[in-house]
């Protein structure tokens, strides 16, 4: 990962018109993506230059300490921020996490590898399937079966993963819109999410906590006409997305709320360990799917949208564009998906078919041992990372050869992003905290693990 703003996307104009770095350096960008020049006073404020001056001009004030959260209505993850404010300006903040510490890592160490999947669902509960895939890949790397995964399973993983990514971004954007008062676009986005959830429900049997991915493949094949339905839903979704954009991106008030708020430079973002849409908003085109392709991501054409300023608006725009890119991937995946099995034929790793389990002692034993003892993973350690909804989602697993992880650690992007929240809101107004927080998209389950 480097700090260069070299684009991997080529010079293709993206649908939403995210400016590529070349275009930024070149100057004029046509279309709605043309960022208006930030007013100089705002720019000064971004660099916190203005703060000292303000003290000189205005009456001397005494800073006030005020507590925000952990049940603050808009902090949809549970977080507590202790603010030191001067009027409306945040002078200092102490961000405290840990209100949703559900001991994922310890629970994982007490469960078999297969039993960990439901826990991963509840890490980033906005895009559970991406976590499923991430964890499955980690265990598969340890088992050494990554190359033998059935192709169809890999495609299905990509499809469900990208659908999950869309729902993740929709929820993040919708919630952020709601928090700044735009309730209507929020409900529209949730409506789209609902359509996608219904699709996933048809496939996985659950609306939100799917536990659909298995080590060695996925639980079951796509239902009939899934691809057609997916296409139809995506078509509808694009329309609604356009409507939402017209209410948000083209709305002057929304732009004013987002432009230049919560700015972070690419260097700082990298230093803080940021990844995902938040890092890309600063102009660094790092995307695990592109830089370290896994599954079949190297077979798709898609662009990595990047921002230029690293402010809240960039985070909105990057997410909006990523939704479209995910749709592009989905479109290609639907075209390319081959026929075949969806689960590896390896009885020590994958479950035998249910019919055989009920009728033959061999499959019964296999099933029994996989359930009770778990999949025996050879001793070793692995760090496997994928592009989650919020960024690089890494699983570090140590195996001792038994059926459960000896140690399982999650590199949770939310946790890492939240570290920088204090810096982002320094000097901003109280009203800026919530959108900034919302667009960092801190998800409690993932952050506190």
């Amino acid at each position, binding site marked *: 990962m480097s700090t260069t703003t070299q684009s991997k996307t080529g010079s293709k104009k993206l649908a939403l018109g995210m400016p590529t770095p070349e275009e930024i350096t070149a100057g004029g960008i046509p279309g709605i993506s043309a960022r208006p020049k930030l007013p100089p006073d705002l720019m000064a404020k971004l660099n916190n230059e203005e703060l000292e001056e303000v003290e000189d001009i205005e009456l001397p004030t005494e800073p006030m300490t005020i507590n925000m959260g952990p049940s603050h209505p808009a902090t949809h993850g549970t977080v507590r921020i202790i603010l030191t404010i001067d009027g409306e300006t945040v002078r200092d903040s102490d961000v405290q996490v840990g209100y949703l510490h559900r001991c994922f890592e310890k629970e994982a160490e007490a469960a078999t590898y297969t039993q960990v999947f439901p826990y991963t669902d509840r890490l980033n509960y906005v895009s559970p399937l991406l976590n499923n895939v991430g964890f499955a890949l980690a265990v598969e790397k340890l088992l050494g079966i990554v190359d033998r995964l059935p192709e169809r399973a890999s495609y299905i993983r990509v499809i469900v993963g990208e659908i999950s990514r869309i729902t993740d971004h929709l929820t993040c954007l919708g919630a952020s819109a709601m928090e700044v008062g735009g309730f209507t676009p929020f409900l529209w986005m949730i409506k789209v999410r609902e359509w996608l959830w219904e699709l996933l429900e048809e496939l996985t049997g659950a609306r939100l906590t799917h536990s659909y991915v298995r080590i060695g493949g996925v639980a079951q094949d796509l239902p009939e006409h899934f691809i057609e339905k997916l296409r139809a839903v995506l078509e509808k979704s694009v329309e609604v997305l356009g409507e939402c954009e017209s209410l948000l991106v083209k709305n002057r008030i929304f732009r004013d709320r987002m432009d230049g708020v919560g700015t972070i430079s690419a260097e700082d973002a990298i230093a803080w360990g940021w990844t995902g849409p938040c890092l890309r908003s600063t102009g660094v085109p790092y995307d695990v799917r592109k830089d370290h392709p896994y599954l079949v991501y190297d077979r798709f054409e898609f662009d990595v949208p990047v921002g230029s300023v690293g402010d809240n608006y960039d985070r909105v725009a990057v997410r909006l564009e990523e939704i479209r890119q995910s749709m592009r991937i989905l479109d290609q995946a639907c075209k390319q998906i081959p026929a075949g099995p969806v689960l590896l034929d390896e*009885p020590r790793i994958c479950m035998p078919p249910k019919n055989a389990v009920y009728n033959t002692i061999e499959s019964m034993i296999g099933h029994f041992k996989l359930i009770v*003892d778990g999949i025996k993973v050879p*001793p*070793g350690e692995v760090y496997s990372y994928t592009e989650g909804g919020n960024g690089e989602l890494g699983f570090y697993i140590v195996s001792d050869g038994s059926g459960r992880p*000896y140690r399982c650690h999650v590199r949770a992007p939310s946790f890492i992003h939240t570290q920088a929240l204090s810096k982002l809101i320094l000097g901003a107004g109280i009203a800026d905290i919530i959108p900034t927080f919302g667009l960092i998209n801190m998800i409690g389950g993932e952050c506190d693990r």
Partner: protein
Amino acid sequence: MAETPPSPMKSSIAAALRETQSPSPPPVAPPAAASAAPAGSAPSSAPPPSDIVTIKLDGRDVQAKKGANLLEVCLSNGVDVSYFCYHPGLSSPAVCRQCLVEVVGQPKLVPACFTPIADKMEVNTATPRVLGIRRQMLEFTLVNHPVDCPICDKAGECTLQKQYQDWDHVGSRSSIPKVHKPKMQDLGPHIVLDAERCILCTRCIRVCDEVAGEKQLTMAWRGDREQLTVAPGHQLDNPYSLNTVDVCPVGALTSKDFRFTMRAWELFSTSSVCPGCATGCNVEVHHAQGEIWRLVPRENLQVNKYWMCDEGRFTYKNVRHKRLTSARIGGGRGQPAQITSIDKAVAFAAERLDRLASGGGTIGLVFSAQTTNEALFALSQVAQKLSTRGATIRTYVTGTAARPERADKILRSADTNPNAAGAKLFAGTGAGDASALLSDLKAGKLKGLWMAGGDLPLTEQALFDAAPLVDGLELFICQAVHDSPLLRRAQVQLPAAAWAEVDGSFTNNKNLVQRLRKAVTPQGDARSHLELIGQIAKKANLAQSEKWQVSARQAFLQMVASVSSSLPAGADPAQSVAAGFASADWGREYLPVQLRFANSRG
């Protein structure tokens, strides 16, 4: 899936973990001299060099004793070979044909468990031919095996399941209907047979023949009708019958006591020692949800090898049976005692004890042979303090009644107390026995009595009759696990934790100091004897911060140091109890092992 070699980084963790998960960690280092060990164990002196031969095992040179069992050589060198009928404690009939390996030069595969090794032998255990045969044998074994795992008690600790998963995991090619046999055949007072599940390994027959010495089981009929059975009109009723359940690799033989009570994979295992008699068989306490569900023998070649008696297995029932769960004070002389907190009872006892000692009264201290060494050591320390304060101390060793009629030469001892040796050591040379105690009480020689353990070798009725004797005492402190008529007359009744609820050690009849581990939490307010003695001593200003008051481990260390300090050099543990302590070791602290992840016990 090929077995990948453990990465270097991993080895330390894996090693550490393997150690914690090992089902049979030796509880205490064996005494230096091996003469205490039962005859038949491995000779202690190294064999002469001429006996050592070198064989090629999977291309690797391995040295072993000439004529040793090939299967044992494989297993001890980390080469995994599947087997059913072989058991280290039994003879090898080579009936299951599961351990077939390739010996270069021999046209046919040979059963490893029946093959002595010879010099320059070349053995291959993982060639496609061997693996194929192994798979075919498993397929053959499973042809008539019922689809029973969900309702089978062995599921989760079944050797057949393990071997199938490790070596076969291929579907059956047979489509003929399975042969049906009796599903629930009563073999004896403790055992039920499911003949369909039986894989005819004959381990159980050999256990009866070779361990219990009673030929009660045999195979009848031939071919796919072959079936385990008892002789007509007979029962599988030898005192070691439940060992057949342990050795059974499948769920054919099940214990009536344990079956359908708890699934094996939900159990946790804590290693401990059987409190049933002075032999001190090493056991695993299998517990879950705060309750003990069964005891199974744990390998210790010096004491019990792989076995234990049926009576010993049921000692776990006493842990929950008739327990005293809360402290009571103010009883005696026909007065009912009042339930109170431990702290109040301890304070009450300490105050009376202090008064009695300062007044120069005679105090009887009872060292129960059912109590751990640490508690008894603590009591002996308190006895010294009491005598320096002016009290006259008389010590007694008691315990439950002996049962010479049940003793045998295999494992069962006439002495039903697990710690008689320890109790005698700490009570001192002048200690009386239970009858001395009763006569002293009758003669009114004692002003106070403090019992660490409420057992007396009397029948229920005799105890009831003897109980009024204590009414003349000024102070009667009784720490007891179980309720009894004697306890009811004590002025201070303290609930003590049972053997499975404490950390500590017992000294067996061969003077081996063996470690007990806490498996379940004490019932009610119960505390260990050691803790109760420590608290009373503290309240009575007899001891403030002695090492033995800190923890059971500290008590153990102090005890070993104190006992072995007065020991002459080169003492033989077989002759002196103290020498047994000198070589005792507390061992590591283990978390209870969940059987589910401890792999099959088989």
